[in-house]
């Protein structure tokens, strides 16, 4: 797949995510509204809340993510080296404007990119990454992040993060309202209500799982692709391969500032390593690092 098809597919995916989100929210609104007397009022309220939430997260999601991970903007002269590297690779990628640069004060080796489009994007690295990687390795990592930005992966991933977050919140709320709610319904409606409760319950249980699976599928395929197009920017796949090796042998992944909502953004999974079972593999946000290294070394 060429880069332009990739960008188009990512934009499509973003619209699809928003669309699915609106349908979901409408449904939830209807079910909850129906339960309390008026389904249409529920739809209206849910749509208004959903759209407001969407707008806030679309324009403020990146900042929320940066705040959540405690990233601070990198300034000259302390981070001249890092800023120059980012600006150089932005030129190589042909971006009109270089992304903003942030750092996380943490000895772990990790990095991520976020934003809604290349003009409103940022790259964040940990100070540990800056200290422990050579110039070529750092360039490899930054190039990987730059590819996420150029391919519009960042938009899909940001939307996935905020919407999966809300879906979880909502289904939680839905479950609660069924458990505790009491409506003034007539008897004829009882059968209908039962159906709604069953569907609602199923949805409430399934929604977070489906959302999670979408997020994972998006993230895993994306990492390989960003590795490859990052190597195309630096013309040196060994740089990123070496960086990944260092990250692999790093005993201290980023645990302090990462959580479930932001995990899929990072270049390598920010949680502590443990034994890999089948289920773990199924639900891991990143492809196995050994396979990524192997692919890079075979380029």
């Amino acid at each position, binding site marked *: 797949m060429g880069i332009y098809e990739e960008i188009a597919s990512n934009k499509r995916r973003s619209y699809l995510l928003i669309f699915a989100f609106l349908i979901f929210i409408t449904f939830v609104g209807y079910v909850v509204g129906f339960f309390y007397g008026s389904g249409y009022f529920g739809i209206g309220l849910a749509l208004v809340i959903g759209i407001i939430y969407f707008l806030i997260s679309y324009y403020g999601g990146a900042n929320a993510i940066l705040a959540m991970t405690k990233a601070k903007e990198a300034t000259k002269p302390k981070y001249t080296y890092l800023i120059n590297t980012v600006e150089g690779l932005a*030129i190589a990628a042909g971006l009109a404007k270089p992304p903003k640069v942030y750092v996380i004060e943490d000895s772990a080796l990790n990095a991520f990119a976020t934003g809604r489009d290349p003009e409103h994007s940022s790259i964040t690295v940990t100070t540990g990454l800056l200290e422990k990687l050579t110039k070529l390795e750092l360039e490899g990592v930054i190039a990987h992040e730059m590819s996420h930005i150029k391919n519009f992966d960042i938009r899909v991933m940001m939307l996935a993060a905020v919407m999966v977050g809300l879906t979880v919140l909502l289904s939680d709320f839905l479950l609660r309202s069924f458990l505790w709610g009491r409506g003034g319904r007539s008897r004829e409606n009882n059968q209908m209500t039962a159906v709604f409760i069953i569907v609602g319950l199923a949805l409430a249980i399934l929604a977070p799982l489906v959302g999670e699976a979408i997020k994972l599928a998006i993230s895993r395929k994306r990492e390989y692709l960003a590795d*490859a197009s990052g190597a195309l920017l630096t013309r040196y796949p060994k740089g990123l391969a070496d960086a990944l090796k260092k990250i692999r042998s790093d005993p201290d992944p980023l645990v302090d500032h990462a959580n479930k909502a932001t995990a899929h953004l990072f270049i390598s999974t920010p949680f502590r390593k443990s034994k890999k079972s089948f289920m773990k593999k199924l639900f891991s946000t990143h492809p196995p690092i050994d396979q990524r290294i192997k692919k890079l070394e075979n*380029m």
Partner: protein
Amino acid sequence: MVATWIIGIIVAVVILFVIYIYNSLIKLKVRVKNAWSQIDVQLKRRYDLIPNLVNAVKGYMKHEKTVLEEVTKARTSLMSGSKETQAEASNQITEALKSIFAVAENYPDLKASENFKQLQEELSGTESKIAYARQFYNDSVMAFNEAIQVFPKNMFAKMFGFKQEEFFGAEGKERENVEVKF
């Protein structure tokens, strides 16, 4: 009546096709132009940094006049001439700067100076930006040159007067090309 309709549709399709080809070529050409201005920005930046470096170094390197003169000479020939001569001058500056920084290793006072350290960081950053800008420019030129040579675009390219663009010097030796497959 039917014949005129068919002819009309064929003419419309041909016109749309020509517009499409013209636009795709123009897009590539604009990209080449933008890529060139990126190189230009970085060359200018280095051009402005060099006098600062020479000033910072002059006091320490009394015995290394030739190195400094080389940089200054290459600098003046940089901002004029064709792309080829500019590329050549740019490479000369890169080499001259390398030797200045190599010589600076012998001067601990100089190396310790905060001003010098910052200049070195800025200059090496600019050097790699030039390399990346050149890479993007040459990629863009390649895409454009390819587009105006393949059939049937080559016929229209000639008609609209598109000419092949010049590459900017050779790629750096330390970066070898790799083929990336998805």
